[in-house]
């Protein structure tokens, strides 16, 4: 482990010698294909701001996604990216992090991708608590496939799969996450409050462990009005503040007067706030920096060189080799 961390510091040191300054455009790749007015644009802007402010080197940064509108995210970032398969963004990201702990790994997943087909991976990723930053773009609908109800669609949502309105109470990703062992960071943001969104993205990036950020996001195309009550009434948003959490600016406090001081280490209170749905809590619900990360617990002391990888693979494959009679003994 020591050797690994030494190596990391050496490469970081070499890279830092070239003092580079980035602009937002340096992280922009192509023109987003999202609809005009889509909340994904706000998330992209916040994440690009983070990259710029933290001077993240594009070649040391990876965005991993699954399937859905949100999962087009890596295409628009001029960094490394992995557009994965449906629901499997988290395992891919875990693999990347395990092999290359020196990279900054981000995951962009949607409400369908994470809470439906990828739900099992989601639960276990939280338990593994690897040092990843996960953004759940929750627009409460399947947008890419043109309006089917998702697990987080509010009850009564009319869609192509639920023409009479959905029958079940919506799943609450916050309470689910807060219910899993080893959870270390949970926050909720809303795309229409860019200042808080950015502050949360930043706090999530700086947290060591899996930071889970649910971003409530408008879908102007398929659910244009569904979030209007919250968007147009600032008092239906509860801003969480704390010395160890967010400290909203004076300008923001003028608009969002409904605020609550909440200690992010208080799990019980976090679960209570998270259950609230008529008023949307925005801020850091839970943040515990002391939960160990899986990659730290499981990381080998050996330096992962190409030779080592090849030797390991050969050893595995040799198990299936059909040896000529007697040769097996000799080789062994």
């Amino acid at each position, binding site marked *: 482990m020591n050797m690994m961390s030494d190596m990391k510091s050496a490469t970081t040191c070499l890279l830092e*010698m070239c003092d580079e300054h980035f602009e937002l455009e340096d992280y922009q790749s192509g023109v987003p294909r999202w609809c005009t007015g889509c909340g994904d644009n706000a998330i992209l*802007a916040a994440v690009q701001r983070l990259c710029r402010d933290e001077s993240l080197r594009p070649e040391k940064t990876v965005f991993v996604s699954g399937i859905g509108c949100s999962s087009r995210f890596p295409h628009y970032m001029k960094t490394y990216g992995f557009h994965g398969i449906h629901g499997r963004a988290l395992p891919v990201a875990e693999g990347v992090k395990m092999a290359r702990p020196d990279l900054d790994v981000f995951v962009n997943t949607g409400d369908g991708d994470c809470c439906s087909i990828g739900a099992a991976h989601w639960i276990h990723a939280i338990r593994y608590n690897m040092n990843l930053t996960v953004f759940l773009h929750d627009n409460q609908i399947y947008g890419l496939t043109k309006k089917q109800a998702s697990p987080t669609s509010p009850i009564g949502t009319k869609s192509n799969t639920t023409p009479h309105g959905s029958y079940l109470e919506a799943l609450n990703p916050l309470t689910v996450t807060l219910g899993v062992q080893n959870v270390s960071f949970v926050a909720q943001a809303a795309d229409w409050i860019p200042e808080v969104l950015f502050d949360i993205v930043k706090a999530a990036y700086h947290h060591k462990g899996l930071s889970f950020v649910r971003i409530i996001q408008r879908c102007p195309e398929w659910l244009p009005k569904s979030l209007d009550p919250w968007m147009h009434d600032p008092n239906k948003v509860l801003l969480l503040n704390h010395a160890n959490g967010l400290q909203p600016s004076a300008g923001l406090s003028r608009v969002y007067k409904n605020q609550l001081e909440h200690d992010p280490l208080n799990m019980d209170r976090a679960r209570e706030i998270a259950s609230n749905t008529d008023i949307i809590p925005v801020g850091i619900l839970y943040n515990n920096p002391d939960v160990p990360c899986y990659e730290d617990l499981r990381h080998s002391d050996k330096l992962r060189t190409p030779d080592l990888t090849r030797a390991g693979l050969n050893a595995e494959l040799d198990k299936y080799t059909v040896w000529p009679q007697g040769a097996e003994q000799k080789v062994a």
Partner: protein
Amino acid sequence: MEADTQAHVAFFLTGRRPSEHLDAVDGLDLRPALFAGYREISQLRYDFPLVLVADRADRLLVQSLSGLVDDALGVAARGSEGERIRKHVLRLEQEIRMLASGGATGTLSALWATAAGRLAKGMDKSGADKSLEDSLRRARAAIKIDGELADCNAALPARLLQHAWNAVQKQKAENFRKDLDRLVLKLSDILKADYERSEAGRSAEHLKAAVGSGFGDAFDFDAMSRILSKALPKDAFPESRRKRIRELLNVLSVQQFFPSPDAASKKSGAAGHYCFLFDSCADALRAFRERMPKLIELARAIAIAELEIDGQYRESRHDALFEQFGANGLDPQDLAPFPDYLVCVNAEKMQAVEHAQLMEILSSGLPIKVLLQIDDILEQPPNAGGSLSSGMRSRQIANMAIGLNEVYVLQSASSNLYQFRERMLRGLTYRGPALYSVFSGACATASGLPPYLMAAAAMESRAFPAFTYDPSAGPNWASRFYLEANSQVDLDWPIQGFTYEDELHQRVSEDLAFTLVDFVASDRRYARHLARVPREKWNGSMIPVDESLTRERKGLPDKVPSLLMVDADNVLQKVIVDERLIREARRCREMWHSLQELGGVHNSHAEKLLAREKKAWEERMQQEAEAHAAVAPVPAHATAASAGASASAAPAAAAAPEPEPERSPDEAYIETARCSSCNECTQLNGKMFAYDGNKQAYIADINAGTYAQLVEAAESCQVSIIHPGKPRNPKEPGLEELLKRAEPFL
């Protein structure tokens, strides 16, 4: 450590080098650190060698080999074979460059063939030469021109200028010839018409000869002659006019200023016409004076001939006028069609008399172009113990010529002549004297550097800045004086990035200024002003030369200026410099400053004016602010109570709110901090709405769109942060409805 510093300071002040602390630089083969990458200059691609294209008098009269090759590759190196062609042709270009720097001369096609042969020999036989042949054939076909190749060496300035001069003179000769032929033809026609009307012209023989042999028997020419003789012209052609025209024809046909077409096709100079190329100012001046009467005669003949052809010549009026023609000399307008003189002199060989002649040429406004070539700007006079001042003399002639106000002046190092080709031509077409002061860089004895590098370094170090002064370009200095060819023209010394590997194999990047001292340090003759500091004795008291130049020295110095240099193995060395060179560098900087001022860079008059205006503006603003503060009422901040807070929520911590900017409801604005970057407004009108550095929208140009668009943007904004204000154009159609729609967003 202390003793080292003391030794360094002592060397700086006295130039004496204690050997236990400092090493001599002789024999170390040091060169400025920034030259490290230019050791093998023929391996690099740069402007040289040049191709001198014949029969062009525009910017294409000289072209760089690499430019031609690039153009050819743009045409020929396409498709799947592009990469192969590119590789081959670039290798050939390098081969030609090596041939040229080795002293080979000839046309581009000749050297191309030689280089191709050498390349083919160097390659292995297995089919490679076939593809090489194909690549070179295709690229050669794309290069449509040919001409002599010229590398950057001692001969270049004269060669290039003569080439340009020849092209300009050839064009001038063609125009002149055309004019002259027209005059001769018309004058001959007048004489011919006169003859036809004379007795002899009406004789039977002449009439018969005019009809020709075919119908010789069909006419009675005697009868015809008799009839014609009776009808004698009433206005007899005056004898004086006939004589005058004959004289004119004589003058025009024997002129020696331009070769006649048949003579030109033979060998110029042989057919008795004048030569205008000189290698001494005195000869040129003498020739000009000797030829003056002939020139006046010819100019006069042309002027009279024009009048004669138009039938405007009146003896009573014009005779007296032309009697005195040219007595006061000719003005540039009259001289313009005649050939210009070209004098190529070398500054080192010039005597004092020659200098005086040069000044006379320049100050007299004669159409004489002078190339003053300087091979060595760091020459050492025998008696002055290493001062640079004598070299200064030849390099400051250009500055003096500028003062004469009507001389076209071009000063440049030869490395920059290609970039200055159009300016060179402009000087040749300028009606008046021109001075080309060119540093060739070819002082091979002084440094081991190739002339191109030496010339470029002189320009870069401000030892020999490039500029032009064109009196015909406009009425003021801003249009006449051009200094921008120098690198980083607004700085004292150009700054270049320099990267090297330190003892720990780490990359170190520094910005180095290239000063006069760097330039001088590459010259072996100045080695005694430098001393190498062994690596273990490097310390903080050694500072870069440019930094030391900016310091005011009071008493004994505690810092010593030092240079970074590299030796033959490209190992970095530090060298300290004595005060004499620093003094020279300071002088060089002062001269550069005065050039900068002429070129409008850091112009002290302008800066003074700016400071004055700025101060006045600030005072005005201050007064306005005070007046405003006295009138404006105190804004009443409404403190709204937190309404509708949920039961579970405590009210917000009472943070002191920062004052909100006062917004008038009439003003259009966006609450940028709340923008969610959703692209609605920017897609509606990308000029009116734009994103800031955080990708949040603001109104970039309120006039770039209509009020209708503002209202539409406000309506479609997902987070309702666009406030359209009041319409700016009261005539916009449908305003009433728009205002109603805008109301919720005001």
